[in-house]
């Protein structure tokens, strides 16, 4: 279920992280983070290594205590509760399955735990269902050590899904896999989610997984949550330069830029100049002050191979990466490299000049120092 679905708005908030701060010595790993996950929703926290993703997840699970802020689970403050009292299930990048048990006993493990102990008959029914859904029914008797990487990952997922906690917390569960397996599991994951309707907080550094799996994505960098929204929302209106740089692959092209007189000058040596209206110029100057600004343009908004008769900028082709359905072009422009996707049949090779264009309407501006978007 996508969050754009109006019904999702009425859903109860299953998990609320309310102003969470966590410090390790001098390092603020998570800084006043606020996020709400609705029942049945998957939110993905996307960010690079060191962004604070795993710490956030561990705080939600109760494996770390926050220095400030509250963890509210299904309306109840669980900040001080240990993990086993929270009714959450966490799956880690390095899944700790027990090598001495077979697949069945590994999956059954959380259901047999003291305090939760289900009758074996029910355990069997649940495992049989989850094993069918994950295509591992034929593996249940096998020892863990005889499984392939993908099979182990499925077993780990099964062990998590066999429970019905209030929320699943997922720490890069697919990142150790071969690219091919990841592709398959991503889609299966989404299908499974629709079937189980589970609530999930999922963290990853992989943009593609984030878009595939998440209803909404939260962009996290250096402990700060920059923006939360559907992939479309983040794409159309990135609030900060960090969001623009982490969303999409290739990400937004970012170029140094300054406003002088009535024009905007992009990357001094690039020869890209946009005349600004008086109102636009005033707005940009007012918000940017004397500070430098960064111009952003999405790869798909750059048209290339513009005929001589039309207005265009010029760049040098310094890379042409065939991707099958399209080709990624790298254009050297001034001191910057611009990336754009083209048809695989686009002519022109390494070292050739290329005429390209993007209109001012497609331009995003950001304050260089703060990273905040400047609307103009």
């Amino acid at each position, binding site marked *: 279920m996508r969050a754009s679905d109006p019904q999702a708005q009425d859903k109860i908030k299953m998990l609320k992280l309310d102003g969470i701060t966590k410090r390790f010595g001098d390092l603020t790993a998570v800084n006043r983070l606020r996020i709400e996950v609705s029942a049945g929703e998957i939110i993905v926290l996307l960010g690079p290594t060191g962004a604070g993703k795993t710490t956030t997840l561990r705080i939600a699970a109760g494996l770390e205590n926050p220095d400030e802020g509250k963890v509210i689970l299904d309306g109840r403050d669980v900040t001080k509760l240990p993990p086993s009292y929270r009714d959450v299930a966490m799956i880690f990048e390095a899944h700790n399955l027990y090598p001495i048990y077979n697949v069945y006993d590994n999956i059954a493990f959380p259901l047999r735990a003291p305090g939760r102990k289900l009758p074996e008959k029910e355990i069997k029914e649940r495992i049989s269902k989850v094993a069918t859904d994950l295509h591992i029914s034929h593996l249940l008797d096998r020892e863990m050590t005889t499984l392939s990487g993908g099979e182990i990952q499925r077993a780990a997922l099964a062990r998590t899904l066999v429970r019905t906690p209030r929320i699943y917390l997922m720490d890069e569960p697919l990142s150790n896999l*071969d690219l091919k397996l990841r592709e398959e599991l991503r889609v299966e994951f*989404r*299908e499974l989610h629709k079937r189980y309707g589970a609530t999930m907080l999922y963290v990853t*550094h992989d943009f593609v997984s984030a878009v595939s799996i998440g209803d909404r994505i939260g962009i996290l960098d250096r402990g700060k949550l920059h923006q939360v929204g559907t992939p479309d929302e983040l794409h159309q209106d990135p609030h900060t330069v960090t969001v623009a740089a*982490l969303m999409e692959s290739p990400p937004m092209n970012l170029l140094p830029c300054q406003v002088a007189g009535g024009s905007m000058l992009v990357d001094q040596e690039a020869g890209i100049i946009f005349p600004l209206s008086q109102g636009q110029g005033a707005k940009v100057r007012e918000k940017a002050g004397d500070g430098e600004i960064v111009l952003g343009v999405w790869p798909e908004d750059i048209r290339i191979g513009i005929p001589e008769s039309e207005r265009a900028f010029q760049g040098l082709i310094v890379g042409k990466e065939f991707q*099958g359905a399209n080709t990624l072009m790298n254009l050297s422009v001034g001191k910057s490299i611009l990336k754009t996707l083209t048809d695989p049949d686009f002519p022109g090779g390494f070292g050739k000049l290329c005429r390209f264009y993007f209109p001012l309407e497609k331009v995003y501006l950001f304050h260089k120092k703060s990273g905040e978007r400047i609307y103009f």
Partner: protein
Amino acid sequence: MAAVHVKNLKKFYGSVKAVDGIDLEIEDQEFVVLLGPSGCGKTTTLRCIAGLESPTSGEIFFDSRRVNTLEPADRNIAMVFQFFALYPHLNAIDNISFPLRAQGTPPKKIGEKIAWISGLLGLEAILKRKVQTLPGGDQQKVALARAIVRDPVVLLLDEPLSQLDEKFRDEMRTELGRLQRSLHVTTIYVTHDQREAMALADKIVLMKDGKILQAGSPREIYGDPQSVFAGYFIGSPGMNFAKCVWEGDRLLFQGGINELKLSDKLATLLSQKGKRNLLIGIRPEHISFSAMQRESVCTLKIKVATVEKFSQFKIFSFHLGEQLFMGRVREEVPEGAEGYVYFLPDRLRFFDAETERSIF
């Protein structure tokens, strides 16, 4: 710089045939990528070329020189590994100049070389930094600079990007391509990541179970996979496949629920081949979706399972028998919608269900 020829190379570890008789012709200055899943023999092949493993049998030539018996140090190759293998407590400049100093290169010459390579890789600003303080992408650049600085005849790269963050990896991939093309150094690159292979290679050598499945330019392999594995492995997502039976006028899919009528041209071709048990293959971008039926052949009624919304395209999935198919389109496709998919007839590929080799 050198051409590299590998003749009937075999490397067995006990009963395990890591490399099982491969032939490679790598031209001078060519960028060749050995691509395949873990255990396919790609790294073992590279290590044999480097001289880090001795082949069980077979021959390796650099130009016309047989190098089988040469030590790695005497082959004039440079190798960059997945892990950086730098001296962490030394600064970048000392790491890069290390092989030159070891060779006894005069200091003036070393200075020139360092200036050249750091300009090429954009390392000027970090030359004095200790490598352990550098981010992964920069460390790998330093490793690359150290490899290239001694003008090797062959550059060998073993998954050099796989330990980097996604973002760095994209940047480094572009950088590597640019670098190789300005250096003109013969390059053999090992990876399991088909995106890297497609982006960088002049020629991809696709390996599986110690053998070469197919070799060719990225476009050839992508456009005309000779086996089910090649179609599946290359492309993201890969080619879609489903088992089916040719009934003379239509294809019947496993489970018997779905059937596909083909264009007259395809039907004639298939009947000529006289095969009944087939696998049909089609790439995601050659599948389109519409709510209403628009075509009379090569079309199927389906229900959309999932949709992944990327800004420039959407990937939607649907079930065909037991198979999950993925299509790539520009327009919005609603999750759960019923409608019709259309397979571009010219882009349909057929494979023998038994051998999994291409029919046409």
